[in-house]
């Protein structure tokens, strides 16, 4: 990785600056507070965002907006990153829109990303395996850029954290991931294996069952055949028995019919006799009643019809008489009216009563006669009506007499019929013969035949039942056979799968077992390389050759003098700086031998506490380092001889300028 340039707008003491970084060793020189470290902070911010950088101290005081644009080259691609800052109130934050340009031979790719997305993208491109769960970028701080105040932190860091960071830097933490993941997955595979083993456990049982089923099927088929034959025989027997029964039943039936008939006849005869007797009694009764009725009818009975006729006649006469009476009355009235009027209404002449007196008298005589006739007619009529009523009453008796006579006739007829019927029945009866013994025998025969038939039927039903059961059983066997075949096929597939799962399990187990030693070997190799380099560089940086440095298996520095291990604190300030620097250089060197690693080294006042001699030694070491680019901040003018290029930074007022 090579930083090509950076543009700063309102970043601390830089208002609007553009710096080009040449390759090789670049020294950023200037007085304290000139703005040297700001450039390094800006580079870190551009690459990794705000994790380790305090944004409020990055944005220039009094400004609300600022930006950093960094261009670098890595693996034949040119990357340009743009991040912006904004102030709102008392806080400073990153603008949520960052830009990334990647130029390669395929063209230029432009992406808009969030600050976090940009960070992860760049970590991936640069091969820096930071812990994504932490905002701080320890791998970057260990291997590329360490701020001055953190240089010696590596010596005092918690051994666990240091080892963890080194593991991440070199990708050794992947072994723990591999081991843990393998363990997790192996648990899952074990479960699947167990499950399949359970499932295929039944294989032998199934095979045994299959074999039994085959045998049972064979037996069942044999039994079925036997039963079918038996049923066939039983069918024949049943038919025979049926025939016998039918014949016996028929014979019995006939006998029964005959007996029934005889009984019926006897019953009928008995009834008829009874009926005749009843009818005879009934007849007598009727005749008595008839006689009584007849006695009730007078001799001079006239029928209502006759009387009706007489009444009609009488009424007619009465009406005539009445009409005549009315006429007379009318005439009388008229004559009386005339008399009273005294004038003729027609002609108007005066009327004398004497003229009409005779008429009136004649009329009055007529009237009296009429009245007498009318009264007589009325009497006659009344008499006739009374006679009619009586006649009606007698009519009813007569009707009853007629009915009685009819009834008597009917009864007589019935008696005659019955007698005739009786005689015919007796004739028939006399012709019918019935033998009880024969009947009993027939009954027994039928019973026997029925029993026989039933017996055969029961046997047949049993056989049929058995046959159906056998057939059902055979069907079940066949179904089960098919089922078992399917299951065995399934089991076969499962065995294949189980085999593969066991292989998968074995491989995982193998890896779980081998990964710790692999990790140990890799760590040991890395440890060995780092230890060798630290030892070499420390001895080059520190004049006191009695002290030697190694790292222990936990990557903790061990200082030895005359064979005694001493704490880092036992070193002088300059020696500690030298040790920290040697450690950093060793890490970066080993990392840069990894093709994906950045290959960039940023040193911020690395020679703090160094003596002049140490500074010279440091210069020698620097010349021997093989990084694509080394950017150094230092106020030590001795280092000018070592750098390939020098960028001088001067601060005027509160603005930094570059030369």
């Amino acid at each position, binding site marked *: 990785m090579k930083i090509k340039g950076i543009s700063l707008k309102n970043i601390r003491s830089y208002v609007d600056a553009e710096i080009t970084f040449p390759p090789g060793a670049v020294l950023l020189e200037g007085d304290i507070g000139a703005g040297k470290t700001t450039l390094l902070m800006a580079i870190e911010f551009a690459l990794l965002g705000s994790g380790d950088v305090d944004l409020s101290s990055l944005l220039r005081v009094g400004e609300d907006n600022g930006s950093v644009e960094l261009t670098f080259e890595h693996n034949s691609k040119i990357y340009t990153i743009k991040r912006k800052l904004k102030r709102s109130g008392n806080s400073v934050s990153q603008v949520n829109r960052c830009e990334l340009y990647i130029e390669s031979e395929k063209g230029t790719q432009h992406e808009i990303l969030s600050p976090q997305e940009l960070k992860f993208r760049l970590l991936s491109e640069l091969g820096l395996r930071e812990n*994504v769960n932490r905002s701080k970028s320890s791998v970057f701080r260990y291997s590329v850029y360490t701020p001055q105040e953190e240089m010696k932190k590596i010596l005092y860091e918690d051994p666990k954290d240091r080892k963890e960071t080194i593991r991440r830097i*070199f*990708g*050794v933490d*992947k*072994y723990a*991931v*591999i081991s843990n*993941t*393998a363990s*997790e*997955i192996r648990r*899952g595979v074990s479960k699947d294996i167990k499950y399949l083993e359970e499932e295929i456990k039944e294989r032998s049982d199934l095979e045994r069952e299959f074999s039994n089923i085959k045998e049972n099927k064979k037996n069942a088929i044999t039994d079925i055949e036997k039963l079918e034959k038996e049923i066939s025989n039983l069918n024949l027997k049943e038919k025979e028995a049926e025939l016998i029964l039918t014949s016996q039943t028929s014979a019995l039936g006939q006998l029964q019919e005959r007996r029934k008939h005889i009984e019926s006849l006897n019953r009928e005869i008995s009834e008829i006799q009874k009926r005749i007797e009843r009818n005879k009694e009934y007849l007598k009764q009727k005749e008595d009643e008839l006689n009584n009725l007849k006695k009730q009818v007078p001799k001079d009975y006239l029928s209502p019809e006759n009387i009706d006729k007489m009444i009609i006649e009488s009424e007619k006469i009465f009406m005539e008489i009445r009409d005549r009476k009315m006429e007379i009355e009318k005439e009388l009235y008229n004559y009386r009216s005339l008399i009273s009027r005294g004038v003729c209404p027609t002609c108007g002449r005066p009327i004398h009563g004497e003229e009409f007196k005779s008429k009136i008298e004649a009329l009055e005589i007529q009237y009296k006669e009429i009245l007498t006739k009318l009264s007589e007619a009325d009497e006659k009529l009344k008499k006739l009506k009374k006679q009619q009523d009586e006649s009606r009453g007698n009519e009813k008796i007569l009707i009853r007499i007629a009915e009685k006579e009819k009834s008597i006739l009917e009864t007589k007829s019935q008696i005659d019929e019955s007698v005739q019927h009786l005689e015919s029945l007796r004739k028939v009866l006399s012709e019918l013969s019935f033998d009880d013994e024969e009947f009993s025998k027939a009954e027994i025969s039928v019973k026997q035949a029925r029993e026989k038939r039933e017996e055969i039927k029961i046997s047949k039903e049993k056989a049929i039942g058995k046959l159906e059961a056998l057939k059902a059983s055979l069907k079940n066997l066949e179904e089960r056979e098919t089922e078992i075949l399917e299951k065995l096929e399934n089991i076969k597939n499962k065995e294949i*799968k189980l085999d*593969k*799962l*066991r*292989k*998968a399990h*074995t*491989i995982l187990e*193998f*890896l779980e077992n*081998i*990964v710790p*030693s*692999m990790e140990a*070997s*890799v760590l*040991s*190799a*890395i440890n*060995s390389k780092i230890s060798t380099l630290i030892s070499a560089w420390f001895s080059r940086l520190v*004049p*006191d050759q*009695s002290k030697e440095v190694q790292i*222990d*298996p936990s990557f903790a520095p061990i200082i030895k*003098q*005359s*064979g*005694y*291990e*001493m*704490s*880092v*604190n*036992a*070193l*002088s*300030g*300059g*020696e*500690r700086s030298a040790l920290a620097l040697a450690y950093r250089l060793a890490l970066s060197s080993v990392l840069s*031998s*990894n093709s994906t690693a950045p290959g960039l080294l940023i040193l911020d006042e690395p020679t703090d*506490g160094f*003596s*002049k*001699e140490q500074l010279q030694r440091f210069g020698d070491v620097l010349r021997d380092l093989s990084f694509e680019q080394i950017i150094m901040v230092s106020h030590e003018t001795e280092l000018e001889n070592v750098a390939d290029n020098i960028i001088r930074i001067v601060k005027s007022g509160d603005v930094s300028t570059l030369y």
Partner: protein
Amino acid sequence: MKDTNSDIIFSHISDIHLGAFGGLLRDYSSNAFKMAIRKSIEMNVKFIIISGDLFHTHVPSMHSAREAAELLREAKEKGIKVYMVYGSHDYSPNYDSMIDILNSAGLVNKVQRLENNVLIPLIDEDLGVAFYGIDARRNGIDADLWKSIRLERAPDDLFNILIAHTAVRELLPKNLAGLIEAVSLSELPSGMSYYAIGHIHSPAFMKYQDSLVAQPGALFGSSVTDLQDTALGMKRGFFVYRKGEAEFVEISPVPIIYSEIDLDGKSPWQFKQDSVEIPPNSVLVLRLKGNLSSGSPSEVDTSSLTKRANSLNTVLLIKRDLKGPEVKETQVSGTVEEIEEEILKKTLLEQKNIFLKDIDSKQLKQIMDILSQEKKEGEKESDRIERIFDTYLKLIGVDQ
């Protein structure tokens, strides 16, 4: 011995090595110097000699320089002068050592006056002392120089002191005899009342002809070896010359204790850290020794000892004089991919399980890549496991 002035009282301190250590040891080292200066003041010395290696480097830290300056000023304010030479550590060929700054500030007096191989004394008439001294150089070049120089003699009535930061054969401890370049007393300029020797860290004293030859040794020490020696009984301090005698004044800013743990025939895991007694506010030099029955020396865990020592404000120095059983160590080297490939291939060859017979390292790598997939954005861990589960089984050919 010529002692023309019976009022001469001085202290002779050497090899302070300020800045040799960091942390607590730095403080103890500073305290040792403080104790020496203050003791000197208390003992009413007239001057102090520092025979080299006041600092551990020629440009020490500001902290060490400041501490030294404060103490030297304290002495100066009491009217006590300090005379010194460069040591082999705080030496600068360009005279831009911190010693030169202290010299310019008048806090010390550099003694060396060497012109054309003639050693000229620095005479302090008030004290009645003539100081001769040669700054130390690296790699024992000064040893040859001693043989070639001539002395410009000071007046006889002066007390002559030679300050030399060099190894003197007669004062060498047995363990160094014959191992390092050293000069004999006879090769040093003669006629001195007092030879103030520095450089070798073990104290020694002898009378030579009429002279006293004193080598105070390291005041505190500059290395763990020094601390070990102290723990094993080597005295630390400085000399005070008075009336023809040199008294060794011991300085002990901190208890330095030596302890050994024998792990012979034991495994690393049998070492119980809790059983080690750590005295508080001290320096504990702990030696683990023995032939382990199994494992390697580095597997002997001492982490909690260090923690406990830190909590007790104790500096712990551990030496592993341990040997483990001869194990043919497999040198692991190569890239991560190469190491993985090698381990996979080797382990697969050893496998008898039929399931592993038909799989190669490439496929295993592929599976490892699948298993190492990280969570996608917004994905829960359970979802990741499920996704990988499906992918893995699909790869193995299991139809879910």
